[in-house]
């Protein structure tokens, strides 16, 4: 009887213990989570409870208990790993500390100056650059394409066409103009895309940005390198590529002077796609291993056409009232007077409608005052379609992101930033539309493109207002010659294609395939 009672008791106890396994396991998971740093507890509790459910469903109570015992046994080690990882992440080397201090001071000085000089347009930019973008993030885990200039946004848009449509994109720029261009070129209804400002290279802004968007790969268009930004990419295991990059003479001299810092910056980039053999040699001279560089050519030749605004085009054509349209794009201070003089030489508003597009938004009011001072019949684009002037001489394009699509309306164009020594702006958007283009002597920002255009006589060089007026007059008088001039540039652009595919090859070789960002892989 005693044996029977003991056996029964043991059996009841065993079945009680087994029956209590799930509860004990849950309790053990709670104990295990207690070993972890506070910020990780929620995540692991959710993860382990989900796995506990899987085990419980398989109805193996003892296995569940054993699993929980092992989890609690391993938890102190996980806690140690997480704490030392957090410590390593928060460690800032003296050099980086100094860098951040210098950056901080430089920003404190330059931000008020920027706001004074460029106005409140830049307030939203400041917020974005501190990593505090407005609105909720819709997509995370995408490919991050960073572009600085307007033309680099075009390169990013060209590249985006070659990337799988179902992969989200994160596009960053640094100016309101760049943002406007990105919004014009990346339509959210066409693909999953987030457009944001690049954060300032300050620890808190960079971390906030990465946490917000959680990108899976970083592709920098051109050479806008930032130490903290790239360091964080490495820490998070992101593949990093710099594409369509070039090194100008001045940049090379500067980079050579700062070689130890630059070497470290470039070492954090997995692949470089450079525009020419000369750039290839320059990167090697800066210590980049040859196997990480490939000459791809210039993707700018393959930038997609800007999205059109048929309403605006219709309005402008109505305002032109049968007159040809002359377009002066991306003009800078000191150029508008010359352009107005050239317009006058042509015959003014009686002969052609001039669309004047200053490069920087903060100059719109200044240019309007100039037009008023000269009693030119002008309207601002922002006032359209309602305007008191039926047949204006000039339309002041006071909008962002619309210029590129308007070149195709013009009979002749001029690229700003070239009649004053600022280095010029991208001529390819205008040239691609087939409009004959005139540029001034200053084109050193686009030296190689300029060399090609000069060689192919794909544009006309002018030195002053008089020469610009003569060229415009010639093209208005002889539309066939104007068309030939435009066609020459289109032909040059067509011949220069191929860089896009070579760049996509680089990205595939960068193991993005293994990130699920490409469907197939190709050798680099």
């Amino acid at each position, binding site marked *: 009887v005693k044996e029977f009672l003991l056996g029964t008791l043991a059996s009841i106890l065993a079945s009680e213990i087994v029956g209590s396994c799930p509860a004990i396991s849950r309790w053990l998971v709670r104990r295990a989570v207690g070993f972890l740093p506070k910020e990780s507890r929620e995540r692991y509790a*959710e993860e382990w409870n*989900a796995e506990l459910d899987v085990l419980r469903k398989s109805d193996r109570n003892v296995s569940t208990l054993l699993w929980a015992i092992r989890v609690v046994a*391993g938890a102190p080690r996980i806690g140690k790993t997480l704490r030392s990882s957090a410590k390593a992440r928060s460690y800032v080397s003296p050099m980086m500390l100094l860098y951040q201090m210098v950056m901080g001071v430089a920003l404190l000085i330059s931000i008020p100056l920027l706001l004074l000089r460029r106005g409140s347009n830049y307030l939203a930019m400041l917020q974005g650059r501190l990593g505090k973008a407005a609105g909720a993030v819709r997509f995370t885990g995408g490919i991050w394409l960073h572009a600085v200039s307007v033309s680099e946004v075009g390169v990013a848009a060209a590249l985006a066409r070659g990337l799988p449509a179902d992969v989200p994109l994160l596009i960053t720029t640094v100016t309101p103009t760049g943002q406007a261009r990105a919004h014009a070129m990346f339509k959210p209804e066409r693909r999953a895309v987030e457009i944001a400002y690049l954060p300032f290279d300050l620890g808190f802004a960079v971390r906030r940005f990465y946490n917000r968007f959680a990108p899976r*790969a970083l592709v920098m268009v051109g050479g806008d390198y930032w130490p903290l930004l790239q360091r964080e990419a490495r820490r998070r295991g*992101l593949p990093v590529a710099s594409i369509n990059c070039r090194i100008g003479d001045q940049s090379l001299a500067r980079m050579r002077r700062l070689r130890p810092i630059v070497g470290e910056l470039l070492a954090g980039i997995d692949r470089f796609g450079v525009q020419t053999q000369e750039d290839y040699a320059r990167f090697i001279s800066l210590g980049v291993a040859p196997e990480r560089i490939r000459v791809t050519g210039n993707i700018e030749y393959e930038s997609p056409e800007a999205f059109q605004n048929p309403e605006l085009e219709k309005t402008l054509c109505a305002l032109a009232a049968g007159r040809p349209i002359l377009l002066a794009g991306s003009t800078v201070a000191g150029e508008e007077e010359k352009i107005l003089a050239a317009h006058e030489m042509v015959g003014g508003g009686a002969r052609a409608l001039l669309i004047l597009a200053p490069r920087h938004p903060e100059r719109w009011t200044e240019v309007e005052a100039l037009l008023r001072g000269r009693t030119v019949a002008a309207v601002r684009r922002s006032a359209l379609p309602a305007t008191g002037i039926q047949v204006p001489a000039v339309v002041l394009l006071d909008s962002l992101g619309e210029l590129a699509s308007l070149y195709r309306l013009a009979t002749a164009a001029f690229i700003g930033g070239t009649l004053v020594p600022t280095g010029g702006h991208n001529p390819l958007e205008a040239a691609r539309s087939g409009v004959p283009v005139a540029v001034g002597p200053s084109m050193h920002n686009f030296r190689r493109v300029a060399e090609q255009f000069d060689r192919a006589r794909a544009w006309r060089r002018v030195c002053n207002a008089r020469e610009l007026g003569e060229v415009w007059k010639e093209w208005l008088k002889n539309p066939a010659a104007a068309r030939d001039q435009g066609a020459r540039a289109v032909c040059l652009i067509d011949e220069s294609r191929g860089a896009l595919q070579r760049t996509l090859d680089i990205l595939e070789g960068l*193991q993005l395939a*293994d990130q699920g960002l490409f469907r197939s892989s190709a050798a680099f």
Partner: protein
Amino acid sequence: MTLQTQRVLAILLNEPLADHYGLEIAKKAGLASGSIYPILARLEAAGWVTSGWEDIDEAKEGRRRRRYYRLTAVGKREVLLVLEEVKRQIFPDLLGEPA
């Protein structure tokens, strides 16, 4: 690198595009379930592995979302280097290295 870690990496490397959760990795790697998490935490801290939540409607699926693990590009590169080194140590003659 311990043998257990190598097994975990082998699972992730074999199916780089698949989503793996802890229990599943442990099972495939032949490891005692529950002992996998310190390994995954270490790999994640090193940037070799990344993790993210499963995107499901928990009410509809009738279960909690899982935490999925995947090799990063850096992780893959490092694993391949380790494999290369292991090969070199095991087959020095085949690879033309001095014994």
